[in-house]
């Protein structure tokens, strides 16, 4: 019963993560994106802790704490400071209109459900069904990167994609070995610094963080 209840909570958290992934697609304001991203990180962190508690795997607590520190506080804060300092405009333009994006998103969710169905059938783990949600989050992050034309939103899409991966790691497999998780966290941190530097570079060379400006390099020349 204990495990059954934990599975339900994980299910609800999975649903919330999926919801936030969609919310990221819909949100127009850049600070709104940051808030949603932080919420997603929070759900992720809680789900890692819940899985850790119900399975008795201690190292998941470390993952959970790491997520909390990195994705709920550090990264949104860094992005907030960057946005503030670079005076980026608050509304985000999108290439594809929002209802279409959402429909594509739905299609992607169905696709990932279909893709992971063989895995779910063999899995005996408590949280097996969340694998589809994890893959869907990855796909939705990808979609966000494609449909948004601003460096900051692309990065948020990228980080949300990374959240999906992390969710896959905790939910499908009770967490990767700690070495790997620490390494991944370190990579993300470095990536965060690099995109911070990038924002400044792009800003100084293009006077805007709009990716539309960056279409000079083409196949031919």
């Amino acid at each position, binding site marked *: 019963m204990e495990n059954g209840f934990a599975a339900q909570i994980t299910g609800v958290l999975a649903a919330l993560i999926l919801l936030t992934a969609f919310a990221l697609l819909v949100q127009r304001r850049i600070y709104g994106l940051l808030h949603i991203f932080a919420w997603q990180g929070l759900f992720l962190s809680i789900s890692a802790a819940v899985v850790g508690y119900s399975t008795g795997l201690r190292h998941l607590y470390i993952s959970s704490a790491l997520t909390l520190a990195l994705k709920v506080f550090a990264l949104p804060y860094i992005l907030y400071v960057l946005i503030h300092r670079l005076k980026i405009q608050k509304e985000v333009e999108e290439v594809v209109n929002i209802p279409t994006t959402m429909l594509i998103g739905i299609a992607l969710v169905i696709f990932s459900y279909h893709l992971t169905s063989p895995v779910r059938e063999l899995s005996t783990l408590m949280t097996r069904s969340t694998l589809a949600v994890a893959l869907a989050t990855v796909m939705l992050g990808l979609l966000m990167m494609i449909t948004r034309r601003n460096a900051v939103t692309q990065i948020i899409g990228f980080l949300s994609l990374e959240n999906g991966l992390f969710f896959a790691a905790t939910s*499908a497999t009770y967490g990767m070995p700690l070495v790997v998780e620490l390494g991944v966290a370190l990579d993300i941190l470095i990536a965060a610094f690099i995109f911070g530097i990038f924002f400044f570079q792009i800003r100084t060379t293009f006077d805007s963080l709009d990716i539309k400006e960056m279409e000079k*390099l083409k196949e031919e020349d």
Partner: protein
Amino acid sequence: MTIQILLGVNIIGAAVLAFLGDRRLAPEVNILCSAATFISSVFLATGVYVNGPMLSGGGFFFVDSFNVYLAVLTAFVSMTTAIFSRRYMRYERRHGRIGRAGMRFYHAMFQLFIFAMLLALLTNNVGVLWIAMELATLSTVLLVSLYRTPSAVEAAWKYFILCGVGIAQALFGTVLLYFAAERVVGEGTGALLWTNLNAVAGRLEPTVLSLAFVFFMVGYGTKVGLVPLHNWLPDAHSEGPTPISAVLSGLLLNVALYALVRCKVLVDGATGSHKAGYIMMVFGLVSIIVPAFSLLRQKDIKRLFAYSSIEHMGIATFAFGLGGPVATFGALLHMLVHSLTKSAIFFTAGHASQMHSTQDMSDIKGLIRGNPLVGWGLMFGVMAIAGMPPFGVFTSEFLILTAAMKDAPFLTPFFLLGVVVAFAALFRKVMPMVFGAVPGNQRPLRPSHIPVIVHMVLVLILGLYLPLFLSQWFHMAVDLLQ
């Protein structure tokens, strides 16, 4: 112990160089570190050659004939590139294309990049392999934007985003792999070690591994630069400093392909079929044909050779996909000779564009008259890369072709089409640059001759005669990959 020294040298080197910055001796220290790496890699290789595959560092590192040969190659090319970059980067510094901070950053990141690649090659852990690949991307991203021109920043951003997304797919593949392995091997680090995985390959769940391979293919395939995931590659190669183009093309692509091949062997072992091989053949073949035609449209000298790199990676991927002893042997040899030739070409191309202060091929002319080493170096390099005998690339491509004739005869026309078109395109583009009178905009330059000569001589030797130890070595690697 050798491995720890091998990797330690780079890390310490990166730290020292970050401290040294723009001081006079920095390039020499860079060379020294790379040379030390090379020497220790040779020691490691002889150890493996004599004693066979070995584990080290409590099972954390694993060396067999496949990865150790790539490690030696990586250390060697990084050493020659360090030698090349001494003169090249000083020229850039003098002409104000980069500043003090840029030089400090360049040297430190160069060593870190080499470290990341060696770690990716030598680690026994699939997860650490992923981390090292990501680290290799991250350490070179800001090097690509080193010149801070709009197109350089654009190229670096593309590189960062596309490779980041690509490599994320590989992480998903790793998660799936762990998911399958954990049920057989048990929880913990053990379930991610190549040695354990290969031992139980037959018992891993085939459906999960097939799914995982798709993600590995997309993930590491992006880093290999396979079509249609190749968009970042020409940009990053053309906009970054030339030594970085040389190591990206000559080494990083190899390392990514190494990761892919390891996954392929594992997955085909688990599924008991040749599914992963077929996927690689398709990707490889597309990557041979598409860039061959793109070559015809290029205007930028470094972009030209970047597309050629995609084509050659396609050839190697195709050959690994084919499987079978001959094709695998050919692919291993191809990785070696391509790496040597392509970095030599980038060295000369870098000098050529320095001489004309442009990368636009229509402005580069009369290289042989202007500077015989650069001119002939480029000429021979292109002859070699296009697959003319007696160079090594000819040998490897010929091996792959014969294997393809035997195993997949209906695919050989496509393979040949790609190779022939690339051949024609390369010569059409390079002839006008090499021959002809010296134009007015050309400046004399002291090129860095040793790396070019050494690479070209090695490629020539490999084409004429394959040393016994090397062929034995490849045979050992081929046995591993069957």
